[in-house]
């Protein structure tokens, strides 16, 4: 099986038995172009500018992935600070009191997921993530690589990492989510322990023991991704299209006047609402007023970034 390198253009050979490798068959180039044009006709911003766009013939890449089925368990102990307000009656008058309690909790949480790991060391980018998300949403049926490769052309990118390395990457990517789940579980248990389900919580110390209950990597699976370039107003932009159904998973588009108008409105709204309230409250409540003013300045700064952007990415 010949694979052509994206970086140096040299052909190389896939190791192992190609019959063991899977690939999702792709639509032909003409169908992909048709789907991309249909998508453009429906696009809110591009549909009015179709006459100024020129599409070029797309290139097909087959990206190698391992799909790793992971189940992680975590046993944890944590110290949680729970804060809530309580109404007390002093001489018959109701009064709010802030109560803070420190609660020690322990528990066990699990997390299962199938993680798509790109079997290449060089990161492809956003389009690879969007492609796998679309793969999970639509579940096309992979076939043996030999059958798919016989159907037509396309560049098969060589896999650079082993299934074991893919497993490591999958576990690594799930750990932050597992830790978030631990914190959520600890907070819920602490609230239950004090009997106030709406209390605010902060997890202070936690010790977590992980256990890998399941870790299996699929066979190497190639997913087809078409990269289609279009010319608008003299500049090149790209569509990244899932090969099996022609869905544009990532679209690079120019920033138009309407996007700039939206950014300007965002900057005005952030500055106006937060600034207006902030300064008006400034004398009554110094802290809240300052926070609102600062937040207004920060949000308006961020919104103004949209006015300076020349390209945008739509997923």
């Amino acid at each position, binding site marked *: 099986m010949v694979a052509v390198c994206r970086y140096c253009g040299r052909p190389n050979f896939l190791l192992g038995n190609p019959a063991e490798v899977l690939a999702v068959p792709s639509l032909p180039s003409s169908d992909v172009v048709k789907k991309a044009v249909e998508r453009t006709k429906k696009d809110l911003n591009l549909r009015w500018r179709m006459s100024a766009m020129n599409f070029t013939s797309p290139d097909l890449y087959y990206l190698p992935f391992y799909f790793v089925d992971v189940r992680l368990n975590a046993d944890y102990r944590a110290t949680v600070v729970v804060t809530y307000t309580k109404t007390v009656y002093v001489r018959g008058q109701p009064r709010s009191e802030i109560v803070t309690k420190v609660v020690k909790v322990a528990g066990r949480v699990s997390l299962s997921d199938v993680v798509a790991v790109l079997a290449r060391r060089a990161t492809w980018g956003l389009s690879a993530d969007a492609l796998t998300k679309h793969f999970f949403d639509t579940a096309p049926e992979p076939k043996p690589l030999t059958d798919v490769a016989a159907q037509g052309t396309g560049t098969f990118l060589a896999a650079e990492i082993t299934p074991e390395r893919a497993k490591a990457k999958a576990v690594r990517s799930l750990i932050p989510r597992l830790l978030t789940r631990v914190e959520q579980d600890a907070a819920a248990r602490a609230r239950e322990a004090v009997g106030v389900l709406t209390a605010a919580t902060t997890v202070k110390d936690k010790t977590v023991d992980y256990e890998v209950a399941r870790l299996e990597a699929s066979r190497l699976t190639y997913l087809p991704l078409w990269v289609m370039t279009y010319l608008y107003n003299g500049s090149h932009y790209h569509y990244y299209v899932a090969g099996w159904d022609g869905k544009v998973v990532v679209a690079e588009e120019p920033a138009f006047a309407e996007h700039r108008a939206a950014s300007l409105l965002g900057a*005005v709204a952030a500055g106006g609402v937060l600034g207006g309230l902030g300064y008006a409250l400034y004398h009554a409540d110094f802290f809240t007023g300052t926070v609102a*003013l600062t937040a207004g300045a920060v949000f308006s700064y961020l919104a*103004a970034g949209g006015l300076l952007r020349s390209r945008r990415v739509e997923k």
Partner: protein
Amino acid sequence: MMQCPFCGARYEAPPGRRFYVCPYCGTVVSEGKTYESVFIFQPRADKTAAFRAALNLKPTGSPDDLPQATPTAAELHFLPLYLYHVSFQPLPELETDAAALAMSKPSVELPRGYRFPTCWKTPFKPSLEKMGVFHQPDLDPESAFYTLGELIEEAEAYASVFKTKVTVSWRFEGIAYFPVWALEYQYGGRKYAAAVDATDGTVIQMEYPLSRRGRAQTAAFAATAALGSAALGALTALWAGLRPELGTLGGLIASTGAALRLAAFAAARRGRYKAEAKL
């Protein structure tokens, strides 16, 4: 002093180092062994394609006739990368190859977190040196290796799941050169620079002239942001039952974030574009 076994140059070699890199030809010597595994990534975008990509990029505020700017210089820079084989004991399944930039201050600024490919390079031949400027490494392989923090963190996170501590060991494998076009063009009597990834023609960064229309438009946006915020601030304060003049002042103050950002852009001598996300 050390004498390079390849070019014969003599250079200072502080004692106690594992690796010595010849500042003249880049040959690496370690414990009496010379590393000759030198590769390059083949440039696929030529000079014309690189200029076309940069001048047709149309960044915000650039003049409409930027594609007609005059290309004045194009130099292909080859940035040196060290290649490593990394293993983690006692988990042999984690072993991998990695590449790290061998320069502390590269001639071309690369996007943050840029990950270099490590496979399928073309062996280097001295005749290729005519293609461009081959930069010599100024970091030794040990220092460059520690820029690969993410790789090590990933292995440690994996090992912690198995309640194991890993020991990192690595083997230096050689050097690979990564090509980047450093372009220069002239517009309105001024010179501007751009950098294009020569492996795929992506514009990495670019300086460009700001048109009068672009400046005026951005200055108008800054004024609109400030005045609009002031007006909305007054309305918000009124709605909340507070004094509208205080709201106006608050809106103005909070709009400084947007107004200053846009005014700085409008007042700048030149615009700057940097590639954001890799698609």
